[in-house]
């Protein structure tokens, strides 16, 4: 499997993911500071609130980014017919597909966690220098936030696979990306942090559905004509 992952990465470079990571982190950081420094009513009530805003921005970004990865690693291979080369190799097709999806999941998960940690830390540093609000960051909050982060990152990685279902029906890149945007908007739209995505059961349930989508995609791969 390691070998297959390595070969996949030879075909599709992940350099784009690095750019996305840098740009997304900066953009989210900038956006949060902008909201925090708007005059008038108080934007953030405290760290817990600020972190949850950072979190949903990050999740939304990477759910869409995951669909770009799915397009590149899976849908695009079908569209350009390169999948017909891959499927004439003496390698289990399920494993080939699994390698692709593992890359997408690993990259998405890692980038969600990294971006969250980086932007949150940056925000903390900024708030200590030029206070937006006076709230103390307790160890408890950090611990609970860390746990929350991991659970949400895992759930969002799972649900980021749902667009694969829409993309694979007609082997369409636009369908993959548009469906991911719809999912990201549905989960993260709302005011004052009261979004669908903040009810932990919703992303977790969708995450399970996403994993089922991946499972059935992998299972079908031996029986479907290409």
């Amino acid at each position, binding site marked *: 499997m390691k070998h297959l992952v390595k*070969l996949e990465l030879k*075909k599709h470079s992940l350099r784009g993911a690095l750019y996305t990571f840098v740009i997304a982190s900066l953009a989210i950081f900038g956006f949060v500071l902008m909201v925090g420094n708007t005059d008038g009513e108080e934007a953030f009530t405290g760290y817990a609130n600020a972190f949850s805003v950072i979190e949903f921005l990050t999740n939304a970004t990477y759910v869409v980014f995951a669909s770009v990865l799915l397009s590149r690693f899976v849908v695009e291979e079908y569209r350009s017919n390169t999948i*017909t080369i891959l499927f004439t190799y003496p390698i*289990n097709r399920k494993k080939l597909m699994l390698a692709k999806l593992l890359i997408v999941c690993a990259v998405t998960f890692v980038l969600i966690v990294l971006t969250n940690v980086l932007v949150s830390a940056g925000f903390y540093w900024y708030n200590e220098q030029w206070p937006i609000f006076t709230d103390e960051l307790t160890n408890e909050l950090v611990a609970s936030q860390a746990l929350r982060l991991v659970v949400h990152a895992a759930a969002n990685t799972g649900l980021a696979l749902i667009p694969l279902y829409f993309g694979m029906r007609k082997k369409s890149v636009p369908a993959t990306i548009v469906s991911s945007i719809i999912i990201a908007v549905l989960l993260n739209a709302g005011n004052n942090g009261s979004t669908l995505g903040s009810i932990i059961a919703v992303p977790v349930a969708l995450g399970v559905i996403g994993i089922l989508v991946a499972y059935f995609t992998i299972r079908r791969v*031996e029986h479907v*004509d290409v």
Partner: protein
Amino acid sequence: MTHILRTYQLTKSYRGKEAVSNVSMNIRKGEIYGFVGPNGAGKTTVMKMLTNLIKPTSGEIEILGERLTPTSYEVLKRMGSIIENPIFYDRLTARENLELHCEYMGFYNRNAIREALELVNLKNVERKPVKHFSLGMKQRLGIARAIATKPELLILDEPINGLDPVGIRELRDLFVMLSTQYGITMLISSHILGEMEQIANTIGVIQGGKLVEEVSMEAIRGRQTEYLELTTRDLTKAAFILEKGLNIRNFRILEDSGLIRIYERKLPQSDIAKALIVGGVSVESFNKKSHTLEDYFLKLIQGGEAREASR
């Protein structure tokens, strides 16, 4: 002789319409099997089924002694193929594409890539991204990829498409060389019959999804009739001499093209020529001709169509 590939009543239907029906083909070890038929006859569909890219609706395939199932992966190691168009990872270079191929095939001979590129005569393009290749170059690269791992069975779908005459000739020689020197069995599809005729040992003719004929080239050659073709402006005079003077009755006059075809072979060509000239017929050309595979093929296919139409 043992068979490398056999299909039994192979059928593929899409939404109830049969694209390929009851194809039973037999490819023997070491031979070049020319798979000919008009566009849309089902050549590619059959070849896709043979490489496991699409699954038959019914029927069976036996390749290299094994029955092909949706999970037959090992047998693919011993095959090389180009299906439909030569497809590559366009952004990668020729060499990178071949390296990937060898890695996936589990073939680790360092010289294989260089040798394969030399065999198909692709030079100084190793570092060029494939997207800048012309169709002819892609075709060559595709063949290089298919033969790099020295497979026992090569399945090539229209490999001479997009090549110039020199390229076609080179590849023809290459195929014959691979067959005779390496003993590679080949299934090559084409609609260019003249080419198939020159290299194939067996011809399979497919039309409307049915294998209408499977015959060895030897048998076709045996069946061919030779005839004499006379080009002249004095058609009536020539015909008169043939019939009255030489007592030849089996000939045909093609008035539009100013030709007479003489099928009767009891008199030597020189005698006929002499009689014609003595008779004052201006002979422009007088050649021995034989039916080509093309004629044979067209007859088969038109016969098929006529049968279809009469139904």
